[in-house]
């Protein structure tokens, strides 16, 4: 299994541009999550999904959108990039249920908005 993969690894955007961060997992996990991590900080939850067709807001959803058309993919969309969205973005997944293995994280996408 490749686990959780994210593309691109790095990206520089100009203010106002849009982009989609891709996330794919091949572990047949129901739950998927998007986090952002600012320098020297912990991770903050942006959006999450409990299955295909179901998404919900996390702690910091403003400026982002998500979709979950398949179990495998959970893309994160930035419509009008702002400097405040400069961060490292991590996608994660896990099987449903409180027991069992914890969230598996992807390698991250480092985004700079200038």
């Amino acid at each position, binding site marked *: 299994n490749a686990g959780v993969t994210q593309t691109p690894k790095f990206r520089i955007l100009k203010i106002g541009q849009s982009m989609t961060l891709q996330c794919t997992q091949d572990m047949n996990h129901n739950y998927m999550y998007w986090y952002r991590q600012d320098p020297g900080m912990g991770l903050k939850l942006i959006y999450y999904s*409990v299955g295909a067709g179901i998404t919900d807001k996390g702690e910091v959803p403003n400026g982002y959108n998500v979709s979950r058309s398949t179990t495998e993919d959970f893309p994160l969309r930035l419509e009008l990039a702002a400097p405040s969205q400069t961060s490292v973005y991590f996608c994660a997944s896990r099987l449903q249920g*409180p027991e069992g293995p914890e969230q598996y994280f992807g390698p991250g996408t480092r985004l700079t908005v200038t």
Partner: protein
Amino acid sequence: GESVGLHLPTLSVQEGDNSIINCAYSNSASDYFIWYKQESGKGPQFIIDIRSNMDKRQGQRVTVLLNKTVKHLSLQIAATQPGDSAVYFCAEKGGTASKLTFGTGTRLQVTL
């Protein structure tokens, strides 16, 4: 969860010594408490978790202690090695979709 400022707390230990990393959590209703390790340029990696009805859990070279009275969690690493150098985060798990709330990160530096 709590966030830290731009300067992470740093714990510096000598190779072979034991390390103790501490964390304060906020939600007494969380089901599980988890420790993650994050190496530079990588995503967090699961280390160990503990259920809210336990006080202690041991893994390979790691022990997690939970004190619910004071909402405190600690990670003990025995015989610390250079490969243990990383940022360590505690996280609370609970609610819909087993969401994680990350707490204060601590940078562990292992000196030779």
